[in-house]
């Protein structure tokens, strides 16, 4: 057998190994700490990302919808909850005339009921490529040609067939492109131009699923679901809202600003909660670690004094205690971040559904930065908590001299 030198690291490893239960407990504390740090920071970063994404994608300043359908519209924007409501197309022209309105574009909503097996209703949003100023900027990020008739653009969370198509009723539609993830209702929606929408409705009626499409007797040619409004520079949303209300009756108006503000408010509460929990867990873990290391060093006073008596310098003793705490931190920190990753990443859709808030995982660079920070923090936690014990332990020869007076 070869003879391995008894280095500081090896002495530390042997000591950790000689008491597996104590070591496991310490590792578990660091694991919790790393889990809280990485999980908490990922969660709050995802929420902030989601909010940023929502702000960017709101696009229009105002959305005019049929009377009392504000909540339904917000549902579509925030979570892609399928809804349908219609009013007469002529409203679009009326709004365009209102003072302070810069641009208008109408959209037409239908929801498909489970067309193929194992799917949920999907919100299909028809838009007018000529006037649209909301959706096309996002489509342009992934698809540079004009969207033709019969083509659709799918949100990021729409699961396509293997052939890159979607089947609605009995007809198959080619998916021209799939949008980037936005954490808004866009992810669960499907976009098409009005001609495609008409094809879809015709297909549904042909398949005898008029009720499923739920367009009722609506005349697709003369109805719209919402009119999106961009306000002219120099006017504020409230003034324009009042102007529109004064001229047109039987409508409700959703202000994007308000949608954003109320979401941001909800999120602030959650963020404060997450940050508090993370901080409390962190402090608790450091405290527990410090107490445990201190108890551990106290219990080993005799061993440390022995090492001193056979020629270990103070630095060496500190080194052994700190190495032990570092090894524990590395193990616990790695396990904790892995555990957090195993929960945050695979279950991100589920988390988002449960939170009911815009939730968008950060990109790889940001994720790696958070990971690095969490690992650094958790790796440092052990040595940080053990510093006092290490210094105290390195003065262990006092133990020998104290005995003289006993």
């Amino acid at each position: 057998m070869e003879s391995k030198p008894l280095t500081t690291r090896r002495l530390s490893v042997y000591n950790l190994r000689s008491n597996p239960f104590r070591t496991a407990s310490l590792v578990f504390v660091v694991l919790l700490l790393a889990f809280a740090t990485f999980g908490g920071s990922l969660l709050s970063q995802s929420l902030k990302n989601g909010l940023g994404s929502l702000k960017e994608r709101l696009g229009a300043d105002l959305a005019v919808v049929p009377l009392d359908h504000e909540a339904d519209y917000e549902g579509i924007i925030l979570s892609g909850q399928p809804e349908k409501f219609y009013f007469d197309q002529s409203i679009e022209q009326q709004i365009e005339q209102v003072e302070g309105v810069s641009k208008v574009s109408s959209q037409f909503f239908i929801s498909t009921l489970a067309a193929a097996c194992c799917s949920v209703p999907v919100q299909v949003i028809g838009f007018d490529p000529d006037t649209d100023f909301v959706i096309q900027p996002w489509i342009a990020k992934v698809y540079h040609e004009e969207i033709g008739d019969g083509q659709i653009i799918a949100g990021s969370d729409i699961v396509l067939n293997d052939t890159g198509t979607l089947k609605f009723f009995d007809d198959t539609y080619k998916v021209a492109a799939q949008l980037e993830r936005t954490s808004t209702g866009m992810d669960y929606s499907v976009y098409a131009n009005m001609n495609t929408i008409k094809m879809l409705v015709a297909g549904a009626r042909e398949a005898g699923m008029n009720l499923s499409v739920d367009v009722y007797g609506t005349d697709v040619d003369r109805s719209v679901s919402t009119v999106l409004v961009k306000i002219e520079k120099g006017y504020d949303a409230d003034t324009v809202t009042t102007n529109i209300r004064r001229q047109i009756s039987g409508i409700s108006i959703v202000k994007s600003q308000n949608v954003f503000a109320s979401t941001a408010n909800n999120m602030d509460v959650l963020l404060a909660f997450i940050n508090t929990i993370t901080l409390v867990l962190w402090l608790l873990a450091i405290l527990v670690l410090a107490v445990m290391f201190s108890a551990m060093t106290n219990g080993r006073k005799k061993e440390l004094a022995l090492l001193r008596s056979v020629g270990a310098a103070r630095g060496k003793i500190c080194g052994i205690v700190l190495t032990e705490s570092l090894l524990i931190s590395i193990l616990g920190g790695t396990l904790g971040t892995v555990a957090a990753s195993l929960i945050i990443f695979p279950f991100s859709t589920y988390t988002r559904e449960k939170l009911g808030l815009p939730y968008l995982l950060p990109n790889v660079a940001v994720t790696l930065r958070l990971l690095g920070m969490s690992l650094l923090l958790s790796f440092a936690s052990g040595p940080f908590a053990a510093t006092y014990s290490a210094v105290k332990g390195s003065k262990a020869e006092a133990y020998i001299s104290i005995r003289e007076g006993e």
Partner: protein
Amino acid sequence: MALEVRSLTKEYIRGRVAFQAVNNVSFVVQPGDFVNIIGRSGSGKSTLVNMIACLLTPTKGSIEIDGLNIVSLKDKEASAYRNSKIGYISQGQSTLASLNVLDNVRVPFHLSKREGTSKEAAFSLLEQTGISHLAAAFPKHLSGGELKRVAIARALINHPDYVIADEPTSDLDVQTTAEIMELLKNIAETGTAVMMITHDMEALGYGSRTFVMDAGILTECAGNRVYISHKRG
């Protein structure tokens, strides 16, 4: 390789009153000496040897080894000195529970930078102390006498000039005490000076010189008179 202790004093403050645990002690130890240090508990014996081992800094006085005053050494140098020149056998059971017997003996070898490996040397020391069959065992399975042998083997791994033994036989039976004392005597015969603190009258006979420590003052006595005076005092 003489060890010269001159006017060594260690002062402690106990309850706001200063007292000399070691008071103006001077003596010389030559290679091969087997020195007994006896005295009542609290008389300053351990304080004295701990200063010689550089574990405590004296208040006054000097300890010179080949003209080098070790009192002024910094912790790192002091530790290196202790590691290479002193073999320390502390009182009671003094092993690292997480290491097996062989590794316990090897520890001092690896505390300073050294060439080569320690395994063969450690194993031969275990043979010398008669416990080579326990090399792979862990301290918790060893008896008191066996643990003391481990401590002796460990004290010798770096070929020290001085072995300090603090009550090496305090928790051993008569038979084992005799065996341990034989071992220490053999060490002294090879030229290593042995300084032993003891309360054990059986152990006294093995030493070549005897010092009595009383209230911090050290006196050297000759032969049996020590024993008697100690008994009286």
